[in-house]
């Protein structure tokens, strides 16, 4: 354990301000605490949080490996084939560049463009937008499949975290190429150092467009990025002044995105003197980022975000400060922070284990992993959207709120319904109700085209967002009848209670309480009776499988199944 802790400190410190002081070992408690027990409980917890949805056989394997070896395995660099090369394809935005569009609109207004010309231009744009949407969906499904297969769980987990923190939305960026390219940046840097990640994201074309720095000009700066980089990426609200926001905005002038690449416009950059967080100079954007990284508060804030995410509980000020200091002094080494956290007994305290509300991606991926299913793409795409976590479309620059904010009365029901579809118990068309079946997101997009501009079409956007989420479920109707093999999974059992326990072990991340267990045994017996299975003879293949499948749906719909 001590070796692991020390590992985190063997780092190259690049910034002069991050002085090479004698490192403070993380929490004293971590050293003083009794040795961390590595058992099924702790192993399952680590798999759930460092990755997704632990299966009983994975828990057994991790326990057998031992903690140190298992933690090491999470950080081994995996050769991962990212099957999509976004450079191969253009984005919808490139389908018709603004100038071309303006030119066409002009000739149309002058009555010089024929109906056919406009129609052809619209067709082209529509086709490009379709392929753009398709490309991002393909990538999203690839990412889901990777999470479900579990080839590189920690990298997937942290990429998901960074996607929520250093976030951008397709809604505004409107280029699948840029969105995917941003995801590659987050994925490659997910376990590296935060300094590189921060500078990378600040110059990332999707981010430059998402937070408008692309339009941040010398004469009248746009403060959007300058504010959010402090509020959300480095210091947290309340740790800077409005004057700092204005000064930082000046420093970032001229940073823009051109042809999906970062470019610097000297002409638009304000080279004047600035005072930022008390530091005077002719700061440019990188100076601002470096000054931010030199603040101990930055270590504290970012470490706090990481810990809150992985533990599902806001850390105490002391705990956050201890990790913040470690993070800061290590030169923002993400791997080091995680290695320390994963062997910290406090990471396994009762307040943390099995008490986090599973986010939609966790719920969907976890359920699929536990049932060993690679679900249909429309279930993943529509399901995550229906539950409120549409990847590459965060609701705001703050990403997704998480915790109990995932749960509304409606989302709780839809989780159960999506589980029902996954196990083949619920017909997707019943979730996508009749009124909504007629809706197709593509139609809304086409309407936008008719309206001429994306801006005019913004009012159509809301409709697309709200109704489009069910479109995919409609498409998958009747095409999904999975083989769960639950009879085999549960095996021969002596009593109904044994069968229920097997299912609970397989499907839940938490121990069900005695009441819930009793209730499920009753339900199991009831279902057996209805299916004509005697309580003794429960080995009748197909009928037994049907009962177990129905039980799996029920269990995944319970409040207990929303925890991990």
């Amino acid at each position, binding site marked *: 354990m001590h070796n692991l802790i020390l590992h985190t400190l063997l780092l190259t410190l690049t910034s002069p301000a991050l002085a090479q002081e004698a490192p403070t070992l993380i929490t004293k408690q971590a050293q003083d605490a009794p040795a961390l027990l590595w058992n099924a409980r702790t192993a399952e917890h680590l798999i759930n949080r460092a990755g997704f949805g632990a299966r009983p056989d994975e828990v057994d394997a991790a326990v057998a490996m031992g903690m140190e070896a298992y933690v090491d395995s999470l950080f081994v660099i995996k050769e991962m084939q990212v099957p999509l090369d976004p450079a191969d394809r253009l984005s919808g935005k490139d389908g018709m560049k603004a100038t071309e569009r303006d030119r066409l609109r002009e000739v149309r207004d002058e009555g010089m463009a024929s109906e056919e010309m406009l129609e052809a231009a619209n067709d082209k744009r529509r086709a490009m937008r379709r392929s753009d949407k398709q490309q991002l969906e393909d990538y999203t499904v690839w990412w889901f499949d990777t999470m479900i297969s579990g080839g590189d769980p920690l990298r997937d987990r942290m990429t998901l975290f960074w996607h929520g923190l250093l976030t951008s939305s397709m809604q505004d960026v409107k280029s699948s190429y840029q969105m995917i390219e941003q995801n590659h940046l987050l994925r490659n840097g997910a376990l590296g150092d935060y300094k590189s990640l921060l500078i990378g994201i600040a110059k990332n074309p999707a981010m430059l467009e998402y937070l408008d720095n692309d339009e941040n000009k010398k004469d009248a700066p746009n403060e959007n990025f300058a504010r959010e980089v402090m509020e959300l990426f480095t210091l947290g609200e309340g740790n800077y002044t409005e004057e700092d926001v204005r000064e930082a905005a000046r420093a970032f002038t001229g940073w823009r995105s051109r042809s999906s690449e970062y470019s610097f416009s000297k002409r638009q950059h304000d080279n004047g003197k600035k005072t930022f967080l008390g530091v005077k100079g002719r700061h440019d954007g990188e100076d601002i980022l470096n000054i931010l990284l030199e603040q101990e508060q930055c270590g504290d804030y970012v470490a706090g975000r990481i810990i809150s995410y992985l533990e599902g509980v806001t850390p105490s000020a002391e705990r956050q400060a201890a990790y913040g200091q470690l993070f800061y002094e290590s030169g923002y080494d993400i791997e080091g922070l995680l290695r320390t956290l994963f062997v910290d007994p406090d990471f396994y305290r009762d307040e943390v284990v099995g008490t986090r509300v599973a986010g939609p991606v966790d719920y969907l991926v976890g359920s699929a992993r536990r049932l060993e299913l690679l679900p249909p793409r429309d279930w993943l795409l529509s399901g995550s959207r229906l539950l409120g976590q549409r990847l590459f479309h965060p609701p705001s620059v703050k990403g997704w709120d998480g915790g109990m904010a995932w749960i509304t009365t409606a989302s709780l029901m839809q989780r159960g319904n999506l589980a*029902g579809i996954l196990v083949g118990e619920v017909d997707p068309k019943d979730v996508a109700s009749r009124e909504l079946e007629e809706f197709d997101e593509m139609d809304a997009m086409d309407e936008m085209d008719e309206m001429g501009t994306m801006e005019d079409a913004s009012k159509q956007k809301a409709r697309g967002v709200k109704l489009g989420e069910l479109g995919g479920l409609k498409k998958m109707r009747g095409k999904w009848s999975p083989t769960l093999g639950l009879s085999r999974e549960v095996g021969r059992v002596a009593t109904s209670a044994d069968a229920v326990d097997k299912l609970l072990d397989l499907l839940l991340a938490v121990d069900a309480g005695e009441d819930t267990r009793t209730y499920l045994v009753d339900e199991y017996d009831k279902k057996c009776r209805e299916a004509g299975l005697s309580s003794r003879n429960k080995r009748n293949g197909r009928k037994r499988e049907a009962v177990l499948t129905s039980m799996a749906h029920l269990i995944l719909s319970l409040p207990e199944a929303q925890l991990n």
Partner: protein
Amino acid sequence: MTMDKHTTGQKAIDRRTLLRGFGALGALTFASRKGLAASLQVAPGLRPDAGSGTLVILQFSGGNDGLSMIVPHGDDAYYDVRPTIAHKPGDVHKIDDYRGFNPNLTALAKRYQSGEVAVIEGCGYEDPSKSHFKSMEIWHAADRDGRAAGEGWVGRLSSAVWKKAVDPNRIVHVGATTPYSLESEHHPAASFVFPEGYRWLGNEGGLGSYEESDGTPKDSGSGSTLDALRGAYSAARESSSAVRKAALAYRPRVEYPNSGIGLALGTAAALIQGGIGSRIISVELGGFDTHNKQLTRHNGVMTELDEALAAFHADLKGTDRGEDTTLMAFSEFGRRVAENGSKGTDHGTAGPMLVLGKGVKGGIYGKHPSLTKLDNGNLIHTTDFRQVYSEVAAQIFGVESKELFGKQYKHLGFLPS
């Protein structure tokens, strides 16, 4: 089921009391709530008159540029600092020599003439935050400390009016994410986007027995999060049928526009006319964070707003429940007075609130903030937004502001008794 009705109801309430006590960041410490709990203790028999009207809260998310909604066309300073995004005096729907409605708020301007629209100018608070999230929290909690102060203001209002008598249909959010204003220790909000899909499929029966056989949360072994989930689960079961039926049975008298806000207000109308006891309905309109291309973008949202409000008004007009409905609109902040270099505006401070309804005494309330005497380029608020909340709480729900906000705010008079 032979279960004693009273016992079942009681248990459900107990479980629900735990529902919304947990924010995104884990358990809130209600002990730290500035003595709120104490102020909510109203002696039995002194229960205020809860009335019967419905309040619709419309949230403009992203920071609405108030100067583009209620345009100060009579102020040269407005044209000086907004060379490319100002609305020309000839385009606005004039209210008076100084101000007018956005050119796209045609129906709203017309309704203003009929005296059913109150515009409360310069709403904000001391030491304004320019963070979307912090400022939104402040408006939601009605407290400068945001969610650190405890429940949302609607949650507090609900406890003051209905004590622990919970009705799962009473507080509804039509939208994906429930706003913090509805965060409540006792009164969970039902929340959905599509009423049609608001149900469990396949195992409703089995889920029903879970609820009834399930013991008290102390057996959960998993502590508070599970209890909160069980509360949401109960609320979902209890609200789903009534809400879905009300929405599906409803035949609006007009066609609502096919926008998110249009559909949400259509659903709100269904809940109001369905008579299922929905008293506070929350809806949201986004798209206000206009750092660039503001003129086109903001005009688009204004058009969307105007069409949706017009449909909602036409649908409810002349009906008892419809005329007993008041709509209040707000945003987390207004925007910078001067435009930026991207034909947009950055985060600012004060902005106008709107209150609409048959019972509203229309007109201009408060004082327009000066466009020249600024705080770092930002408007200085002239009305504390809690003053507006207070009047709404008192006149619709019979709760005095001292009980809610610890301070007696003077009514502006837009909701006469």
